[in-house]
């Protein structure tokens, strides 16, 4: 599986090379840096007109959904969501244990993922758990704006692979069962990030506080789709969508369908 992933990195580098025919010195340097960064993709600095559309349920979504111009710094972003294997490694290396372990890695058995889940996105991790992971590696989560740019590219595709929905390019079965993070190489974003649509929602960086509530925006949608109108929206979602996730205690903040990926700002 790891071999396949490195093949994809190479493919993506070629792709980036085609895209930027005349590479600047800085870009070449960045490419070198990317090779050094295991599993990360370089996203050049950019600006774009941000706009998000989603179903507003009761409770509203107190956030500026645009259109507004946003800047995305140059980033090295995870090509894939963090997998169970990576998270296990993190626990080994860091000794991290959450203060409130309710539902923490609830799908693991005897302190470890099941072998069949090795390369699936880690779930049952709260936003705090995700931040702890990122922090250990000197990274952070993608912000809401960054995530959209990373998924749609400069082209601002509606879905990571293009403007049309294509169920063969993402896990969108309606069920909770997850697929490996590299199961849909054709669903990669223009920057080469994979598994950004469906499969599992992704935490974004900001904890938003309107004075009475705290919430985080989830991105990408999930394979799972609640049956009823009153259920939170699920299913694979376009790049210009997010879900307001209202925070409570850690047992509630950890879900079977929420994962994360990390990024680092590239040094100028």
């Amino acid at each position, binding site marked *: 599986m790891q071999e396949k992933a490195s093949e994809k990195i190479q493919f993506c580098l070629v792709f980036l090379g085609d895209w930027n025919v005349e590479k600047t010195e800085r870009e070449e340097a960045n490419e070198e840096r990317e090779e050094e960064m295991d599993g990360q993709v370089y996203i050049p600095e950019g600006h774009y007109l941000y706009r998000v559309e989603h179903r507003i*349920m*009761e*409770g*509203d979504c107190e956030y500026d959904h645009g259109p507004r111009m946003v800047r995305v710094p140059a980033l090295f972003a995870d090509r894939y969501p963090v997998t169970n294997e990576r998270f296990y490694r993190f626990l080994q290396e860091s000794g991290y244990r959450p203060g*409130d372990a*309710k*539902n923490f890695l609830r799908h693991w058995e005897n302190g470890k993922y099941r072998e069949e889940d090795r390369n699936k996105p880690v779930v049952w991790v709260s936003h705090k758990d995700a931040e702890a992971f990122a922090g250990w590696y000197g990274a952070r989560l993608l912000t809401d704006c960054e995530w959209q740019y990373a998924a749609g590219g400069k082209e601002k595709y509606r879905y990571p692979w293009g403007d049309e929905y294509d169920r063969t390019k993402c896990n969108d079965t309606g069920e*909770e069962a997850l697929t490996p993070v590299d199961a849909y190489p054709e669903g990669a974003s223009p920057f080469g990030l994979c598994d950004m649509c469906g499969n599992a*929602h992704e935490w974004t960086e900001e904890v938003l506080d*309107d*004075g*009475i*509530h*705290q*919430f985080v925006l*989830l991105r990408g949608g*999930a394979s*799972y789709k*609640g*049956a*009823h*109108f*009153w*259920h*939170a*929206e*699920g299913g694979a979602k376009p790049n210009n969508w997010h*879900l*307001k*996730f*209202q*925070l*409570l*205690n*850690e*047992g*509630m903040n950890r*879900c*079977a*369908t*929420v994962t994360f990926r990390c990024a680092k700002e590239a040094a100028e």
Partner: protein
Amino acid sequence: MNIFEIENTQLRFRFDTASGLCCTGIFQKEMKEEWLTKACVPFILEVCGKAYPADVFEIRKAELLQDERDRALVFELFLAEWKIRMRLSVSVKEECLVFLLQAGAEWQESPREVYLQIPLFRYFPERGKWHLSANPRSKPDGSPALELHEEFPLPICCIDPETAHGIMMELPDYPEFTGTWNQNRNRQLLQMTDSGEFLNHNLLLRLQNKELADVAEIHFSSLTEGYKEAFFRYKAHIRKNMDFSMYEKEDLKWYRKAVYHHLAFAYSREIFNYETQKLEVERLLDDGEAFGGYDILVLWFVYPRLGVDTRKQWDFCNDIPGGIEGINEICDKAHARGVRVMLPYNPWDAADNEALTDVLEHIAELVEKTRIDGIWFDTMDSIPRGCRERIERIRPGVICCLEVTPKVRGTVEEITGSWNQRFRMPEGHVLRYLFPEHAAPMTSRWRVAEKKDMLIKRAVFNGTGFAIWQDVFGAWLPFDKEQKAALKKWKQILLANFDTYFGTDSMPLYPVLREELYINAFYHDNGEEEIYSVYNASDHAVDGALFRLYPPPASGEKIQIEELWTGEGSFSIHQGKIISGTIEPERIYILKMTRRKKV
């Protein structure tokens, strides 16, 4: 013999068959008043654009039928041109005369459209004011000043406002057949909101049948004390065959006095502390003192979070702060302060393979494992069959509260409370007055500012409890200081006068002497105390005579008037029965009358 009469103690119907069937009188015996100003045909049929009044029908039979119990005047009629049979009967019941029209047709090929008119109403006295079932009284904008209920349609009345004499008509209806191919057209008459539309009705009959089918049934009775008499007579009819034993259970009685509910949205600093990660129920209850105190908390942690993954509402009970034990701690802390706790049940959050028995088991398990006092049935106007019994087997006294007003009679009997989520004024819900024992606090999840003021007025106007809901699933819509103070004051008044507000008798749309006013009346069972909530819906003050007291004070009885809400104004009684005073625009006054024997 051409004259046919039939009567009970109140009314006498008279028909003349000399030149076809004609109704020549509806006589009110007690007042010796003829209520039909002109002889007229009792019905007109319209077939293919041509009108056929009853007097062109061949009268095949006209007879008075009687057995040991019942008596009926029956006319059998036939329209040869279309082979349509009609039967008009007037039967005697203890409290009314039943005017029943039946029709049947033998069509050559397929049925034609046939329209029915009952012209009698047009010849009632012009002084009579119409109180329609769907619009017993209008608000200034013309819409009904009462929320109505399909299962319990109000009577249609024509009342002389000066004498309070009039005619009351009850139209039996079976709403479960609404919208289907049902021959009885009572529903159409019940749904009319404009007296012009009612008087000039033209009812499309479902006349596909050969045998006679009921097409209109009207129960006529006489009124001598106006709409108050009509409402209470109707209410007695409605309640006569209902079972209210659920409301009499000792272990549920606390619920009636738990007048202030609160929806506690867990994902909110209103109750949750993000730093300590705990639900702080004591702080919430402290804050509730500004409203006069919450009596029931609905602890809400389900929607809109359900659906992010496959966890169900039952799983969330384990996952919220403290899990089941956390819920019990909340219950204990609330109980220590006399406050009850309800948890929601969300029927839409069902597992794919969930059966009714699973739901009952889940609810039963929740009741068994926790010390909650009730279940709040989200989005529901009834509860799953067997649910209440299942709960009762585990812990009697656990109440069931519906989010939505019960839709059918059986639910009113079984479920002792629901929320009324409306805010308009001057308006109330008819169920509040038909079933005052059914706890129905008012709430409005979305209204802010002056709409919240209106909501408070509505609670005061209708003498109801209140569901305080400030955090609507993540939208913070708090009440301001003045609104909190108003609610605190209202709770004190409501509880201090509980037996009057929730006595056996209360009525909406009490008759007024000024069009600008709307009044609801509440009567203590001891016959000594009455409360009139008076609202001026206009933009100007109303001064002078406001309303009459029914009954007027007995001889040797003195009326003491006290205003409880504004603390302003001066009110007096004239001519022994007319209440006078000044009512400022868009304001509400609570007039408490105490009847005392003169010493």
